[in-house]
């Protein structure tokens, strides 16, 4: 074999080896084709409004495959849950355990629409089946800037309200509860292959606008992106402005005054064999932060007192760690799988 031939064979085998090796690692580790987290947050931010107040994300596939989830399923799972999952799959074509890769959702308190939430789900979807199911339930399809917009405005007519009856009930004296017909302003569209947007119609239309290149998105909200940068490494997180939610909620004054003066809050979690979570809150000033830390410290002490005679809960409470400096207050918890085993033993088993 000449040197030229030898080099060719080596290069060819190298390409095959690297390619197959990468694919194998991706298959076992669950590494996505595109990184969940770029420097400036998940790519789904591009389709969310820049005024989004709360943004959250869950790596569904990763969590479904986690050891903790398997343990919880073994302990608390039931045939009814399995049947529900199977029925959901038959109706939508979506296997919740494997087809949905991740969900990113946002809440826009500045939106004037009745429904201010937008959910973006990435995964493998049978668009035809989903559309057929929604049409079967009264949805209409319109075209919006080249995308099919499925409007669920008549999703819950009165004559289907009888289905509100609990089918598991054996009490024949219970009369079916009639719910009034109610319209929703929900819409669903497939923004791009493998990405479905569902939520309030104006927000879904805005997502389509952002996809086709118009407007500013949450990815250009510097404050939001700055808070997202610290969330790498977690497979579930929420970031938001509590003060904006409070304004939107229009709470009575005496209730609003009870809520601490928190601006940004962050909840991040890593679910694998156990749960490692951290809740971080930014107070308005140092004094508010100190007061908040005192309050949390008090609750922790109370919790430790209450659980002193319950070892299964004690380990959980002991894992809570208060921290943070300046205007930041953080509460971290690290719960290994054994705690969930103990909690499961303490909680009565669900009826099948």
């Amino acid at each position: 074999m000449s040197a030229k031939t030898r080099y060719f064979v080596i290069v060819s085998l190298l390409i095959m080896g690297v390619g197959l090796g990468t694919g194998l690692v991706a298959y076992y580790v669950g590494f996505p084709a595109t990184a969940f987290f770029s420097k400036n947050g998940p790519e789904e931010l591009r389709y969310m409004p820049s005024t989004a107040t709360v943004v959250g994300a869950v790596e569904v596939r990763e969590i479904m495959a986690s050891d903790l989830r398997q343990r919880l399923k073994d302990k608390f799972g039931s045939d009814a849950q399995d049947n529900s999952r199977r029925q959901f799959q038959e109706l939508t074509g979506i296997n919740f355990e494997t087809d949905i890769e991740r969900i990113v959702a946002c809440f826009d308190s500045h939106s004037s629409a009745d429904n201010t939430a937008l959910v973006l789900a990435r995964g493998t979807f049978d668009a035809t089946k989903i559309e057929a199911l929604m049409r079967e339930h009264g949805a209409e399809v319109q075209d919006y800037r080249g995308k099919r917009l499925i409007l669920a405005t008549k999703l819950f007519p009165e004559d289907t309200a009888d289905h509100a009856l609990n089918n598991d009930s054996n009490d024949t004296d219970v009369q079916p509860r009639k719910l009034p017909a109610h319209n929703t302003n929900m819409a669903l569209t497939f923004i791009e292959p493998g990405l479905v947007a569902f939520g309030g119609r104006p927000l879904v239309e805005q997502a389509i606008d952002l996809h086709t290149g118009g407007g500013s998105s949450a990815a250009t909200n510097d404050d939001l992106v700055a808070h997202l940068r610290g969330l790498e490494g977690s497979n579930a997180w929420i970031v938001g402005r509590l003060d904006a939610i409070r304004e939107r909620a229009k709470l009575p004054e005496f209730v609003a005054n009870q809520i601490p003066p928190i601006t940004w809050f962050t909840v991040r979690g890593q679910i694998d064999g156990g749960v490692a979570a951290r809740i971080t809150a930014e107070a308005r000033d140092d004094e508010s932060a100190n007061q908040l830390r005192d309050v949390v410290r008090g609750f922790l002490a109370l919790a430790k007192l209450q659980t002193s005679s319950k070892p299964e809960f004690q380990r959980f409470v002991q894992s809570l760690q208060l921290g943070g400096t300046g205007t930041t207050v953080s509460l971290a918890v690290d719960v290994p799988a054994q705690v969930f085993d103990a909690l499961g033993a303490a909680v009565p088993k669900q009826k099948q």
Partner: protein
Amino acid sequence: METPRVIPSALRVFEFSLGQMLWSRRSVFLALLVGAPIAMALGIRIIAAAHGLPVINGAGLTGPTLFGILMWLLFVRFIVPVLGVFYGTSLIADEVDDKTITYLFTRPVPRSAVLLGKYFSYLACVVLLVLPSVIVVYFLIVPIGGSIGQSFPQLAADLGMLVVGLASYGAVFSWVGARLKRPLIVGLVFAFGWESTVLLIPGYLKRLSVAYYLQALVPHAMPQDSSISSLLSAFQELPAVWVSLVCLTGITVVGLWLAGRTVEKREYVLEQ
């Protein structure tokens, strides 16, 4: 003097044939053939990045779907049979045309070892070119709306299917090349005439084709976009995977045995 055994002789022939086959003029055609899907994949990737993939009736094309279509239409239905025809038929025919077969047959090695060694070099040559091409296409296409990890089993199955297909077609056409005077024409008629037609005819005829068993190995790669293919898939009876593997192995072994026997028995008359 004892005649060397077939396998060691075949390996010796394989060693010098591999380089000969790789760096021949025919390899330019081979490079174009395996380079075209990569160029196509690059183009698709650029278009997808700029404009997104087309949406058909609300369902968008995803990378894995496109990869399956490319595998079926490009590799399985075109590249693999073409490579089998052009290289398989030329294993002995080229030596006859170049009048160099005398030198091979005067060596103290079994004639069938010469054919076997050339067949192994053909297989190594096409596998070392086609499989990396498929892998590059995979990494270019699948990430568009898909997952490399999730689609990896499909890639592994497709690579296995390609190796089996190349081996089967190569064996069949090596026999055609050893047996017939104009093997290229017969090979092309078989690959693109008989194989395409017989799959459409209901009944047992389709079992006399390589494509019937090959497509059973990766049925998901078949596109369902046209009414004809949808109709075909409704009436198609695909054999089980193990049946396909056994039959394709049988086709390869029988093809090589027939080719070896033909080479042993036939007197090649060189044209003056």
